């Protein structure tokens, strides 16, 4: 294009006129650019894999109307701010940041770019252009805890936590409550890995548990390494986490919690295309289809399978809340009275174990 002073002046004048008239100026022509920030690699076989599957489904659904971009293995913390900003400078108008640790980075960048829409997974801070979305993983944990309590022979089940944040603590409490319900002798060993994704460390954590006599392992980290460690040990059962982890069927993986994000992504992208997007806090569970229970394999006796599926169906029908009183806190003080259930705010800030769990939560 031949740029000279006259055309520059003319285009400047046009823009100024449009601005004063208050007409919407389209910043970009063409497809809506949607960015995704991932905490692990897309091939982790768990959390990030599942988000990326949903991204691909959204891309297929909208075709040429949108263009999706992603960056994987973005560290939580200050560097995330740079990655998000870079995506915006690259033209992204809607950004999904898919890990708890991106919360402050997302809040900071959202304040700087009021025209860009942000969606942060599993956090609790919102802004006019920043929504949050989360899944009630603890509902899935209730089902896994029931199976774990029935399947353990040593009466020791293990939970590999990532970071001591409410999401993990909800999972630990929910799994433990339901394991105890079907097996009063069960005990739970918790290891905090202080990472979402480090296969060697996750495998080591699983091995350390197995050495302690644990024979059913639940994980809250993203890789399939604990599954492989359990497979190598033999006689140890696991649950798929975030993704089905079907490669480890029928044992060690005897069931799974699957995160199903694509309906949410498609709905929110549609809202931006329609211009109806608004900030909100979405927290979906089994009922909403965001949390799904993967196939319970033949390694589980039929009556246990039926019991677990009945629990799942009760939650899907909205008839049962995993945290239903009477429940006490770890120190024995009462938490929930008979029939009482906690509010979502209370769950979002959960920082205590329930009665019967040993050990303490690192602060």
């Amino acid at each position, binding site marked *: 294009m031949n740029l000279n002073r006259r055309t520059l002046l003319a285009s400047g004048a046009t823009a100024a006129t449009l601005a004063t008239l208050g007409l919407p100026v389209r910043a970009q022509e063409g497809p809506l650019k949607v960015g995704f920030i991932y905490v*692990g*690699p*897309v*091939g*982790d*076989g768990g959390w990030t894999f599942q988000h990326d599957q949903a991204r691909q489904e959204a891309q297929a659904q909208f075709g040429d109307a949108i263009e999706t971009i992603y960056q994987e*293995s973005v560290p939580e913390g200050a560097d995330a701010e740079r990655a998000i900003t870079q995506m915006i400078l690259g033209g992204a108008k809607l950004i999904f940041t898919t890990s708890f640790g991106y919360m402050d980075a997302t809040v900071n960048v959202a304040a700087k770019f009021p025209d860009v829409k942000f969606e942060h997974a599993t956090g609790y801070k919102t802004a006019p252009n920043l929504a949050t979305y989360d899944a009630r993983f603890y509902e899935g944990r209730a089902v896994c805890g029931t199976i774990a309590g029935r399947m353990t022979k040593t009466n020791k089940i*293990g939970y590999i936590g990532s970071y*001591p944040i409410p999401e993990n603590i909800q999972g630990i409490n929910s799994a433990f409550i339901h394991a105890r319900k079907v097996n009063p002798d069960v005990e739970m*060993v*918790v*290891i*905090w*890995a*202080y*990472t979402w*994704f*480090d*296969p*060697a*460390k996750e*495998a*080591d*954590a699983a*091995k*350390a*548990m197995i*050495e*302690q006599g*644990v024979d059913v392992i639940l994980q809250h980290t993203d*890789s*399939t*390494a604990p599954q*492989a*460690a359990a*497979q*190598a040990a033999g006689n140890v059962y696991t649950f798929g986490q975030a993704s089905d982890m*079907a*490669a*480890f069927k029928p044992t060690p993986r005897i069931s799974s919690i699957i995160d199903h994000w694509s309906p949410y992504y498609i709905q929110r992208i549609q809202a931006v295309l329609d211009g109806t997007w608004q900030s909100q806090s979405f927290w979906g569970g089994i009922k909403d289809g965001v949390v799904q229970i993967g196939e319970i394999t033949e390694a589980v006796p039929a009556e246990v399978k039926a019991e677990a599926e009945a629990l799942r169906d009760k939650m899907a029908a909205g008839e049962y809340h995993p945290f239903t009183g009477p429940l006490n806190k770890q120190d024995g003080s009462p938490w929930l009275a008979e029939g009482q259930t906690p509010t979502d705010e209370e769950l979002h800030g959960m920082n205590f174990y329930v009665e019967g769990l*040993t*050990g*303490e*939560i*690192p*602060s």
Partner: protein
Amino acid sequence: MDPILLLASLMVASTPILLASLGELVVERSGVLNLGVEGMMITGAITGFAAGVATNSALLGFVGAAAGGAALSLLFAVLVLWLRSNQVATGLALTLFGLGVAALVGQSYNGIRAPAMPDFRIPLLADIPVLGPILFRHDLVVYLGLALVAGVWWFLNRSRAGLTLRAVGENHDAAHALGYKVLRLRLLAILFGGACAGLGGAYLSLVRVPQWTEGVTAGAGWIALAIVVFASWRPLRLLLGAWLFGGISYLQLNLQAADVRLGFSLFGSRWELPADLQTLLFASAPYLVTILVLVLISSGKGRAALAAPGSLGQPFHASR
């Protein structure tokens, strides 16, 4: 918590970083800084896994891993030695390239089971109480790692070729003037470093995890680089460093699993570390110790002992 079992696991946990850092030590003693250890490790992890699956033999897998790591390091060698590119930038690029290549090659290996790596009990020695289970009931690669440490120590300190390699690393112009083939020696050192890093990566994907997962090394290559500095470029200190770095994180997980808290009893009252402090302390201990060691050996009398190779990181051209 069984201390014998724990020490045995510690040997296994430290093997990947031991192998990778040992290779890097030889590379750096020849005067080349290769920051691409992470990339070479993960390339070795996938080529080793692929070779292992194809041949259904973990041992042949390790051969493939060494070849894969060395092949990637050859690229680095050509760029750095003959095209005289910046070593730091090239090394970082090698890491990114290795991570990408491994992710690409690994696409079809998700969820595949690794061939089993049998433990090899050394006859007689394995039956010694205490020492037997700790030292002599492992797989062959653990022994290979220890043998390589001894071999590298002997090579650097007792052999003529090792002396030449050190001379090239200390002052490449002088070594060149004496008629030594600087580039050829450095090429061999870089290939050795690549092969070792590949073995270390494959130990993760074939034995320790054991499966292929994208990003399986998760920063182990960077720790290997830190250990070389911690060891002040000496093989025996390197062994200590690898046990320290690899062992502490494993110990930390075990203390959590057993719900054991470190502490002491004084006048009948017991004092214990809080759970979160203990975990953080263990997680940061290797780095704190590295800083401490660097301060100690670079001050006063021990100063000469730090001694990074004189030509480390500098490009060499015969015309100068």
